[in-house]
């Protein structure tokens, strides 16, 4: 979001570059780490995230795979069980459906079924979200859906720091971690410390403090929500913005602290409304902070429709800043 001026210890970079740097760093740091997926090497990654890495790190660390999502995801699971620290790139969440058997029936269950003998320290990265007019088969936002599955952890880096820092922490985790990168963030630019490194993954972050309402969100919707908060501030409404960062486990404490303070909440989530992560967050608030609420919780989710191709319909299908503003006003009973 800033011009390119470099000052000591701070660089101008992009989300894409931050992810790339995280991968490069992890591979250089630990010889057990390698990246595997479709078109990550010779092609340079479908969103150019891994461009240049094959030349730099070689084909054993940057392994191009055939179109065999179940096969190479399972291969990542097995390699993790045998002591490696693989990163599987599933290109986009849309194709991850082909690997769901391996993810749910193997990765998420093996530790349990084996009575704790076999862990799966695997990281699976994939792009998620709509916004590029890719239509109904290429625009899913299923990160909240994956968060239903015990045995998995689900991360949604929304900032440059998290894009840079979550991967290594995930690789150090003894259990399978899914990282969802929102496609609309890859081009986001900004400043990052040259020594930016691993970040914690167990706490949600308060990205903006406010007293009037809690806006709870993650991933690509974070920036729309911050924009909404800014617009609301101009109207005298001070919204607190929480970036969940991890969808499984959820950091209930941060959510409840905020809601207990503001007494109102709107959840913003790019998943389809019914059965959304927003419903889970809302339900937890009801379970844990019901008596603190001064108004019904609101949610801004995707409409119940496969994502259409035309720009105006796609935009209308997913959360947007004006809708968030409207939901906040509704929650506050403001016109």
């Amino acid at each position, binding site marked *: 979001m800033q011009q390119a001026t470099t000052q000591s210890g701070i660089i101008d970079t992009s989300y894409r570059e931050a992810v790339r740097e995280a991968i490069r760093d992890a591979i250089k740091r630990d010889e057990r780490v390698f990246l595997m997926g*479709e078109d990550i090497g010779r092609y340079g990654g479908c969103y150019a995230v891994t461009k240049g890495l094959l030349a730099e790190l070689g084909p054993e660390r940057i392994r191009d795979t*055939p179109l065999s999502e179940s096969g190479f995801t399972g291969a990542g699971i097995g390699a993790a069980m045998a002591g490696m620290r693989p990163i599987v790139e599933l290109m986009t969440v849309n194709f991850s459906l082909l690997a769901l058997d391996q993810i749910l029936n193997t990765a998420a269950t093996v530790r349990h079924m084996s009575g704790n003998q076999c862990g799966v320290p695997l990281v699976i990265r994939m792009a998620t979200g709509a916004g590029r007019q890719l239509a109904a*088969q290429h625009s899913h936002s299923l990160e909240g859906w994956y968060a239903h599955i015990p045995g998995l952890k689900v991360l949604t880096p929304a900032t440059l720091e998290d894009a840079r820092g979550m991967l290594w922490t995930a690789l150090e985790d003894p259990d399978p971690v899914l990282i969802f990168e929102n496609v609309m963030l890859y081009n986001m630019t900004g400043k990052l410390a040259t020594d930016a490194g691993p970040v914690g993954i167990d706490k949600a972050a308060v990205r903006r403090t406010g007293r009037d309402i809690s806006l709870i969100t993650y991933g690509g919707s974070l920036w729309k929500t911050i924009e909404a908060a800014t617009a609301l501030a101009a109207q005298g409404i001070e919204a607190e913005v929480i970036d969940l960062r991890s969808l499984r486990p959820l950091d209930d404490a941060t959510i409840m602290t905020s809601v207990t303070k503001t007494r109102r909440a709107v959840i913003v989530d790019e998943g389809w409304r019914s059965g959304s992560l927003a419903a889970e967050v809302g339900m937890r608030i009801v379970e844990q902070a019901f008596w603190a609420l001064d108004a019904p919780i609101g949610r801004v989710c995707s409409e119940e429709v496969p994502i259409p191709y035309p720009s105006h319909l796609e935009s209308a*299908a997913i959360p947007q800043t004006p809708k968030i503003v409207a939901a906040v006003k509704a929650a506050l009973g403001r016109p």
Partner: protein
Amino acid sequence: MTAPAEKPRLSREHMLDLLKQMIRIRRFEDKCYELYTQEKIRGFMHLYDGEEAVAVGIIPLLEKRDRIVATYREHGQALVRGVPMTTVMAEMYGKQEGCSHGRGGSMHLFDQATNFYGGNAIVGGGLPLSIGLALADHIQRSDIVTTCFFGDGAVAEGEFHESMNLAALWGLPVLFVCENNLYAMGTALAISESETNIQQKAACYRMASEAVDGMDVIAVEAAGRRAIHAVRESGKPYFLECRTYRFRAHSMFDAQLYRDKAEVDAWRKKGPIMHLQGWLQANQMIHPEDVPHMEADIDAEIAEAIAFAEAGTWEPVEQLTRFTYAESIFPANR
């Protein structure tokens, strides 16, 4: 163009028609490229540039009642099948006059009138679908042929394997057409398959097969005729590998780091349009004015398609959730 005769037809008229259809696709897509840079067309767009002989060689051999399943690289298939260029273009604009009501875009051209069951943006995703279409025809004892197009990359998918086995096991009337253009995005065949001879996969399922030079429309047509005849007569599947090449980038986001310009140039020399044009010239079957005439016709058609798309309307945003369910059942979704 529905001529299921058994012998190759080498009449001047027919040859020129094949040529024209290829040029029609090429020029249409060249225009699409331009429109993409003007942001009239958005999303992912995959051009068929270099592969035209495959669609043109096969699809005109099909009967009206036959069915087609295609991939996201399906403009050529749709046009040859007879989906009007106007509605194809309007679809790529996202206008509601588009062949998929604007909802699908470039990757999801559908047309019930011509039994065109879509572009499919999931690699390999159309294969099981084609099995089902053919299963319905098999059960109903019709002689309809379902032609399923897919790329070399799809062959590594589990869905390919399951579909091949089901088709062969149940004896279903599917013509599998593998458009082997040697790459799946940036992944060369040898990076994707332990056995790079794709035709041989068919034998693994006891399925009849043939491989053909996919740059030679006459050869494709001859092979297609044999294949379709076999499927229609036997009710059993057939596998046709068309060896071809894509001259342009995979999609509009592809720096083509994975192949040399020299390789592309070498293939360009074997281009299907050039190839046929050269053959016609060598056999004195083409007049100097033929191609310019064709191009003029085609350009007029393209201009009309663009005008149609430009004049098309955006679907009102109030109708956003339409087509999620059938409307008679969910009136609330209107």
